C-alpha cells in the first residue's frame, strides 16, 4: 500500500494524530515498566526454595527459661516425635521466609578482620538439630549432611557463634564463594577464631528475609549442626503427610502447651509463612496487572473514539474514493495502515519514554535495568491494541457506499 497519501492526510490532522501518538507512547511507557515490575515480583515469589514445603509445619515455643533449654528441647522433640502422623522432627533457630533473621558473614580467607565491610559475604545461618534434613526435606547435591557426633558437639558459645567445624551450604552461596571450584572440603572463616569446613552442598534454601540484599543473595544460606541444648533453637520443624498437616499441627501445639504452661506456643504451616511473606509482593503484582488492564482498555477506547470521529469526518472522501474505483478492502487497509503508522510513531516515542522512566526508577528505587526484550514485546502489544481498536471504525468506513460522494451530507 502506498503510504504517501496517508502521511499527507496525517500532516493535515496534526492535533488528533499527535494526541493518539502521545496516548500510545504513554501507554507503552507505563505498560513496559509495569510488566517489568510484575515480572520482577513473580520472579521473587517463584524463587526456588528446595525444602519440601507441603508437609511442613513450624511450632514456635517462646518464654521458656533459657537455663532449662538442655532439658526442654530433648523433651519437646521426643513429645512431638511420638505424635501420630509425624514423620520427622527437628529444632531450628529461624525458619525460611519468616522475616525473623539470623545473619552472619563469612570469608574464604583466614585472619580477615571481622566485618571489615567488603570481604565478608552476608548469609542466613540455620542452626539445626539432628534430622533437620529430613524434617525440612533438603535436597543434598554434593557431600553429606552432618554425622551424629557433629550434632552432639554443636553448641553456641557465649558469643553465639557455633563451636563446631562442619557446615552445609546452599548451591548459590557455594558458587558465590568459589565460582569455578568444588566447594566440598573448602573452609569458611569468620575472623581468626572461627572456621567451618564445607561437608555438603544443598539445593538453594531461601533466607528468613532478604536482609537488604538483592534476589541473588536471597538463597545465601548455611546450615550448622547443634545439640538440642540451646535456647536459641526455639522453633520445631514438624513433618507429616500433607493431608495430616492440619491435625498434626493442632496436636503439636496443644501437646507443647500442656508440657509447658508458662510458654507461649504458636503453630503455623509453612504455606502460611510463605503466604504471609509474599502477601505484599503478590498484592502489588495484582495491582500492577489491574493498572495494565484498565490502561489498555482506556487507550483502546480512546483510539476507537478518535478513529470513529475521523471516519465520520471523512465519509465524503471515502465515498469519492469508492466512486472512483477503490474497493472495500482498499478503504479497510487504508485505515489499518494509517493506524499502524500512528502506532509506530507512538511506539517509538513510547520506548524512549519507557527507557527514561526505567532509568529514573533505577536511580531512585530498587529496580533493575529493563531487558531489551521488553521493547519489541511492548511494541507488538500496542500495535495489536491499535489494530484491534481501529478494526470497528475501519470496517464501518469500508461500508460507506460510493453514493455518499454525490450527496451533500
Amino acid at each position, binding site marked *: 500500500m502506498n503510504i504517501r497519501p496517508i502521511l499527507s492526510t496525517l500532516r493535515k490532522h496534526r*492535533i*488528533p494524530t499527535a*494526541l*493518539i501518538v*502521545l*496516548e500510545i507512547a*504513554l*501507554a507503552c*511507557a*507505563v505498560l513496559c*515498566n*509495569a510488566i517489568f*515490575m510484575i515480572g520482577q515480583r513473580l520472579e521473587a515469589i517463584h524463587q526456588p526454595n528446595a525444602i519440601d514445603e507441603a508437609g511442613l509445619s513450624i511450632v514456635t515455643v*517462646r*518464654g521458656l*527459661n533459657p537455663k532449662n533449654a538442655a532439658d526442654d528441647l530433648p523433651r519437646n522433640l521426643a513429645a512431638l516425635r511420638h505424635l501420630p502422623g509425624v514423620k520427622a522432627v527437628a529444632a531450628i533457630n529461624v525458619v525460611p521466609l519468616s522475616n525473623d533473621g539470623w545473619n552472619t558473614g563469612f570469608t574464604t580467607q583466614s585472619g580477615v*578482620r*571481622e*566485618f*571489615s*565491610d567488603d570481604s565478608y559475604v552476608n548469609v542466613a545461618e540455620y542452626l539445626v538439630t539432628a534430622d533437620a534434613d529430613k524434617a525440612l526435606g533438603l535436597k543434598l547435591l554434593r557431600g553429606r549432611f552432618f554425622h551424629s557426633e557433629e550434632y552432639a558437639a554443636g553448641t553456641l558459645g*557465649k*558469643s*553465639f*557463634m557455633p563451636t563446631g567445624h562442619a557446615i552445609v551450604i546452599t548451591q548459590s552461596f557455594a558458587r558465590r564463594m568459589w565460582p569455578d571450584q568444588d566447594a566440598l572440603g573448602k573452609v569458611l572463616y*569468620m*575472623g581468626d*577464631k*572461627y572456621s567451618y569446613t564445607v561437608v555438603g552442598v544443598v539445593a538453594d534454601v531461601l533466607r528468613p528475609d532478604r536482609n537488604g540484599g538483592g534476589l541473588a543473595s536471597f538463597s545465601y544460606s548455611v546450615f550448622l549442626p547443634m545439640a538440642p541444648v540451646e535456647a536459641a533453637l526455639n522453633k520445631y520443624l514438624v513433618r507429616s503427610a500433607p493431608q495430616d498437616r492440619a491435625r498434626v499441627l493442632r496436636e503439636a501445639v496443644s501437646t507443647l*502447651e500442656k508440657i509447658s*504452661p*508458662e510458654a*507461649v506456643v504458636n503453630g503455623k504451616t509453612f504455606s502460611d509463612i510463605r503466604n*504471609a511473606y509474599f*502477601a*505484599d509482593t503478590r*498484592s*502489588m503484582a495484582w*495491582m*500492577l496487572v489491574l*493498572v495494565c488492564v*484498565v*490502561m489498555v482498555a*482506556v*487507550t483502546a*477506547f*480512546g483510539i476507537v*473514539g*478518535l478513529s*470513529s*470521529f*475521523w471516519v*465520520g*469526518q471523512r465519509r465524503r472522501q471515502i465515498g469519492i474514493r469508492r466512486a472512483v474505483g477503490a474497493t472495500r478492502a482498499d478503504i479497510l487497509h487504508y485505515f489499518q495502515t494509517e493506524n499502524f503508522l500512528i502506532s509506530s510513531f507512538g511506539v517509538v516515542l513510547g520506548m524512549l519514554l519507557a527507557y527514561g*522512566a526505567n532509568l529514573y*526508577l533505577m536511580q*531512585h*528505587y*530498587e529496580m533493575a535495568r529493563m531487558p531489551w526484550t521488553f521493547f519489541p514485546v511492548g511494541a507488538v502489544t500496542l500495535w495489536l491494541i491499535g489494530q484491534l481498536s481501529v478494526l470497528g471504525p475501519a470496517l464501518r468506513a469500508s461500508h460507506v457506499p460510493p453514493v455518499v460522494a454525490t450527496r451533500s*451530507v
Partner: protein
Amino acid sequence: MFTYYIDLALRSLRRNTVLTALMVLALALGIGASITTLTVLRLLSGDPLPARSAQLYYPQVDPRPALDDPSRARPMPAMSWTDAMNLVNARKARYQAAMALTQAKVMPAKTGERPFFSDAVMTTADFFPMFDVPFRYGSGWSAGEGQARARVVVISDALNRKLFAGANSVGRTLRIRDHDFRIVGVLRPWSPQPRFYAVWLGGRSYGDGDGVFLPLHTAVADKMSPNNLNCFAAGGDLNDLTKAPCIWLGVWVDLPTASQARAYRGFLDNYVHQQIALGRMHRTDVAMPDLMQWMRESHVVPSDVQLQTWLAFGFLLICVVNTVGLLLAKCLKRSQEIGVRRALGASRRAVFAQFMVEASIIGLAGGLLGLLFAELGLWAIRQQPAEYADLAHLDLGMFAFTFVVALVSSLLAGVLPAWRASVLAPAPQLKAS
C-alpha cells in the same frame, strides 16, 4: 450566561451518552487510582510528631574497626551500650533517651490463662517528655528510678484495657517474665505513624503502638534481649550486652534551637575524637539527622508504595490525554453548531467558555465517581495484610484535593478542544451545511 453554558454543556453531553460516559469513566479511574495511592503515600510519609519533629535528632557514630579507606565509612544506624550511655549521661540536650525494642512476656493475672508477648520498649526516663507521650493515668519514671533499676512499668491504653478493663491501674502489679513490676503510668492511645523511634530497632514501622515501656537498666539487668542486635566483631560475650561489641540502641536527643543543634553536633564530633584518643573507637564518621531526614534516609516508606503513586499518575496522564482526544472529536463534530453560534454574535471567548464549562462538568462528574473509586481502592487496601492497612482512610484534605485534581485535569483536557472550537472560522462551517 454561566447557567446557559451549563445548560448547553448538559445538552451536548446528553446527546452522546456513550462517549460522555467513557470520558467520565476514564477520568474517574485515573483520579480514583491517583487519590488512592496518594492517600497511602501521604499517610506513610507523614510526620509522626508534627509539634516536635523539627527539634528531635538521631545522633549516629561508628564503633567499627578502622577502614583502609576512611572516606567509605558510613555511621551505624544504632549504638552500642557504651556510646548510648555516654551520650545520655552527658545530658548535653534538653532531653535525651536511649531505647531498644523487645518482647515482654506478660504473665496472666488469673491462673489457667496463658501468658502472652507484648511489644515493649526498654528506654530511659526522658522518652516520655521528649516525645510528648500522653498519659491517661500516672506518669513515666524518674531518671533516678531508671538508674536504680526500679521495677516500674508504663503500659499502653490497649494493654490497660485488656488487663484492667480500662480502670486506673497505677500502683497495681504487672508480672513480666519472673518479676513483678509496679505500674506507674498508663498512656492514652499513642501510636505515631511511622513508629519513628523503632525504625532500625527490629519493630514494624507502622501499625499499633507498643504495649509496655520499661526502664532500660532494669530490662538489661533482667537479660531481656533486644529485637535487633548487630555485632561488629565476633567473639564478644553476648550474654552481657553492656560490654558486647554490638549495636542495638537508638538514641534520640531534643535540641529546641538551631544553635543548640550545632553545639550538639560539635559535642558529638568531640566525643568521637576523644573516644578515638582513648583507643575505644577508630572511625570519625558521625551523623545527626533530624526526625524527618532520618525517616527518609532509612527508607521507611515502602518503595512499592512510591512506585504505585508514580504509576497511578502516569495512568491519570493517559486518561487526561484520552479525554483531550475525545473532547476534541466531540467539539469538531459540532463545528456547524459553533459556526451558527459565532454567526449569531457569540464571541470567541464565549465559545471557549462554553467548552471549558463542558469540560469542567465532565471533570466534576469524574471527580465524584473518582472519589467513589478511591474509597473502593482504599477499602481494598484495608483488606490487605500490610501493616499500615488499617490506616488507609480518605481525610478531608484528600477529599478536597480529589476535586482539585479532577477540575485541573478536566480543564487541562478542555483547553485544547475549546481553543480549537473558538478559532473555527464560522463562514466555512455555515457553507458546508
